[in-house]
């Protein structure tokens, strides 16, 4: 397979390659993204490969081999790609083939042929085999030979890791058109829905995956995305949620069958327990109760048990709280306030859990929309967010020359100046102290930018002043006035405790503080009930080109505020 195919011959898909699960998607002719199911009917295909007597098992079939063929099953290897052995965390692979050091990189010792000897298979090779299987699944589904893809990666994927992944995909016959970040892919998949508005907003993408959780704060400005802050945690993960259930069921089992022993102390029992617990966890996202049932869990003893969602919420409460903290930390890291966040996109398989959404919900104001299956009926399946984004991007760029794509995605193009403060107009009064600032262009908007606004005028019309200024956002915290003391004295001791908890709540509001005035303009003789249109263009050199005119009127006033540097090419 040559790495460079003719753009016209390309069949490109989107691939989301995760540690636990991978998925593939394509974009239909009418611009909708569709996730492809593999031959087993799975849309989330476990990133696992297992070898039984030289036969390669992939996906769900490989995953079930954790129980009986753990040593020859490789899984959770995405993060090992392009890494040194010293810097990998082998914890997820505890119940499958262990990673070993191989030269500069990482490999697995697997018996992958029908010969009775262990071969050293590098992570790159394992990835290639995995991607090949994905490619063949996609090709079978589409009826065309898939030869190119956009692959999503975490935001902290290093160049070496990308390089290794690129090599592995090329070996698998997939031309990597572009690597895109998982959180932005998720935002794109929402924004690419038909009828979606590309408003100016701050979006937090919170991905609670199998082995790690990643939070990204993204400024979405008219379809241009900028990542403001990211946070990664390898301790808050779906694995930990599984572990909570494993411990619960193991204890229940020990209670019932004292003689059989702890299923956690036996590798095989543990693997069975883990697989079933993951299934229980998924079932609890849909129903309020779930059954655990496993034949011959330990020493030939069967075990069945039920668990309800409340119990699970309680057991995992620490992890849910930790995840919520992580989200709020990421917002803090971006120097923002929860009030600035207009949307939180919950991604990753574990975001199906209703408690995850409600925990995050409780930490943010009502103005924040939480996009998760349990809070919004129109939410996209969190497991498919990034792959859909990748598929959309693939359809957008598949006709371009590789060279062209590379040039366009280069820092020379992507690095742009971003506004450090919001720019808007002063309403009601021209005085800075009493005027009310209304933003037209938010902070962290990539330059150059153009925004228009229509503003109301005084009822009687006449001459109006338009003052364009910078504004900085402030969070006003007001504590509700404490109740009069007499009331308190009247209250009995019994309910005084309740009073205390009530008082803690404080009111947080978003306010604007008027900063530097940039320009003033006058529009004379506005008709009664007329409106004024303001168009502001800010160039990459920070120059402002503004046009003010009454809606429906001809002409208008133009003004230019000089910028202070000239390095932009526009």
């Amino acid at each position, binding site marked *: 397979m040559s790495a460079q195919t003719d753009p016209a011959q390309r069949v490109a898909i989107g691939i989301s390659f995760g540690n636990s699960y991978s998925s593939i998607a394509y974009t239909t002719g009418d611009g909708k993204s569709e996730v492809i199911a593999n031959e087993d009917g799975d849309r989330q295909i476990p990133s696992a490969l297992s070898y039984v007597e030289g036969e390669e098992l992939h996906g769900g079939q490989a995953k079930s081999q954790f129980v009986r063929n753990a040593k020859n099953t490789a899984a959770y290897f995405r993060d090992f790609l392009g890494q040194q052995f010293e810097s990998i965390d082998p914890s997820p692979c505890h119940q499958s083939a262990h990673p070993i050091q191989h030269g500069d990189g990482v490999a697995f010792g697997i018996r992958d042929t029908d010969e009775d000897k262990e071969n050293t298979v590098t992570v790159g090779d394992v990835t290639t085999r995995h991607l090949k299987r994905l490619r063949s699944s996609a090709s079978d589904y589409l009826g065309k030979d898939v030869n190119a893809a956009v692959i999503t990666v975490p935001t902290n994927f290093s160049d070496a890791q990308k390089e290794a992944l690129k090599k592995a995909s090329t070996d698998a016959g997939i031309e990597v058109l572009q690597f895109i970040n998982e959180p932005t892919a998720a935002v794109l998949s929402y924004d690419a829905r038909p009828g979606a508005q590309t408003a100016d907003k701050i979006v937090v993408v919170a991905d609670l995956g199998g082995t790690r959780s990643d939070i990204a704060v993204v400024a979405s400005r008219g379809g241009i995305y900028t990542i403001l802050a990211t946070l990664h945690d390898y301790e808050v993960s779906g694995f930990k949620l599984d572990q909570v259930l494993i411990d619960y069921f193991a204890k229940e089992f020990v209670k019932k069958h004292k003689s059989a022993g702890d299923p956690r102390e036996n590798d095989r029992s543990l693997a069975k327990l883990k697989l079933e617990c993951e299934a229980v966890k998924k079932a609890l996202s849909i129903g309020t109760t779930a059954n655990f049932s496993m034949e011959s869990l330990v020493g030939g003893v069967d075990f069945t048990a039920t668990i309800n969602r409340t119990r699970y919420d309680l057991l995992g409460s620490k992890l849910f709280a930790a995840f919520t903290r992580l989200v709020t930390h990421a917002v803090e890291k971006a120097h923002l306030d929860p009030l600035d966040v207009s949307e939180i996109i919950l991604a990753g398989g574990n975001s199906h859990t209703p408690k995850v959404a409600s925990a995050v919900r409780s930490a943010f104001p009502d103005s924040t929309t939480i996009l998760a299956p349990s809070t919004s009926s129109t939410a996209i399946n969190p497991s498919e967010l990034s792959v859909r984004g990748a598929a959309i991007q693939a359809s957008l760029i598949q006709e371009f020359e590789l060279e062209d794509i590379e040039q366009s995605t280069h820092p*020379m193009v992507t690095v742009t100046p971003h506004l450090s403060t919001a720019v808007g107009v002063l309403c009601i009064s021209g005085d800075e102290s009493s005027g009310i600032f209304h933003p037209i262009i938010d902070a962290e908007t990539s330059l150059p930018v153009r925004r228009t606004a229509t503003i109301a005028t005084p009822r009687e019309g006449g001459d109006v002043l338009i003052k364009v200024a910078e504004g900085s956002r402030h969070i006003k915290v007001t504590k509700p006035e404490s109740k009069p003391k007499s009331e308190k004295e009247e209250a009995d001791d019994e309910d005084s405790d309740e009073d205390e908890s009530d008082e803690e709540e404080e009111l947080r509001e978003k306010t604007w503080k008027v900063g*530097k005035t*940039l320009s*003033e303009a006058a529009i004379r003789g506005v008709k009664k009930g007329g409106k004024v249109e303001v168009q502001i263009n800010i160039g990459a050199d920070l120059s402002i080109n503004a046009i003010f005119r009454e809606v429906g009127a001809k002409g208008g006033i133009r003004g230019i505020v000089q910028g202070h540097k000239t390095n932009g090419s526009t």
Partner: protein
Amino acid sequence: MANVEISLPLPVLPEGWAGEKDFKSIGQLSQATDRNIEPIGPHFLAYARRKRHQRTFSEDDRIQAQAHVKQVEDEDPDDIDEPEDPLMLQREAKDWKSQDHYAVLGITRHRHRATEEQIKRAHRRKVLKHHPDKKAAAGGTEDDQFFKCIQKATEVLSDPVRRRQFDSVDEGAEVEPPSKKDTQKGNFYKLWGKVFEAEGRFSNNQPVPKLGNDKSTKEEVEHFYNFWYNFDSWRTFEYLDEDVPDDNENRDQKRHVERKNQAARRKKKTEDTTRLRRLVDDALALDERIKKFRQAESAQKNKRRLEKEAEQKRLAEEAAKKKEEDAKAAAEKEAAEKAAKADNKKSKEAAKNAAKKNKRVVRGAVKDANYFHASGDAPATQIDGALNDVDLIITRIDNEELAALTSKLNTEKDAAKIKGIFQEEVKRLVGAGKVTEGELKSLA
């Protein structure tokens, strides 16, 4: 692109506002931040097309562009790497209660100040280094004891409640109060400052006031000690609890242990409160500033006392002086009075004598006037009446009038004249209302 609708009205143009073509440029935008936009989506592609104009960039441009980008992914800062104590690596996981979790994770430099992120990073670093699967793969032993220690440490430190419980009894963060001897060498503030800083980590009220130095004002020092005497601590002693047996064992036993733990916690808490109180007492006793303030205060008081005393002395002196003067004046007055009295007596006596003499003269005059009888010897009744009348006159008039009357009568020998004088006198007396007419028959 997006159109912003603003419903608040624009301000009315102020009088006299003028600009060239009705526009004024006033300020410049604040400096922008260079960030990487995500090369994704249709809007980006449109932007890229505009920006590139089908150009290719030189290597130089590329390097330039990357140089100033604001980093979003943070590099791992080297603030949590500490050498590992080989003894610590030998630890058994079952003794996790006695281990120093911060030391296990290599963040003893931060301890209770370590952020959640630092703990996470430290844990990750340790996991990468000590994972048993890795050691086994590298041909090492299957010893996972220290790894379990690491997991335990993270478990404790990443749970805010359990972390507080551990911080409460974290000996590594404790600072022993200095001995009396040490503080007398003049580094009171340095030594005790550390102690209070360490104790301050338990405070519910932040920020904790600092010990300060010898230049602190009295208010600051007072605030400091008031704060510490009213210290509100979150310190708890759950960490030192005896293990409560698992729920499927004896329930009574479980409750017993729980009760015992509760009691032990309360006791330790009380002890801790007294310990802190004693500590503050000790510091207060050794604090030179308190002495200084007390001296200053007593000096102030002394000064006031001296002033008061001086004032009193002055007042006493003044009073004494006044008394003396008064006494003097009184004495003088007394003497004068005495003299006056003596004079008075003399004059009274003289007057009395004079009156007597005058009376005699008056009476004699009556005799001289032959008792107002016309001629010959006056009959007894006449004499009697005349004498009675004269006596009446004498009693009715005072000494001076008597003297005046006497002086008139003294030289007169003529009876008629004398009678005339008497009659005149009687007339005057009647006029003055001292006698009634007809009372004095002989002089009528």
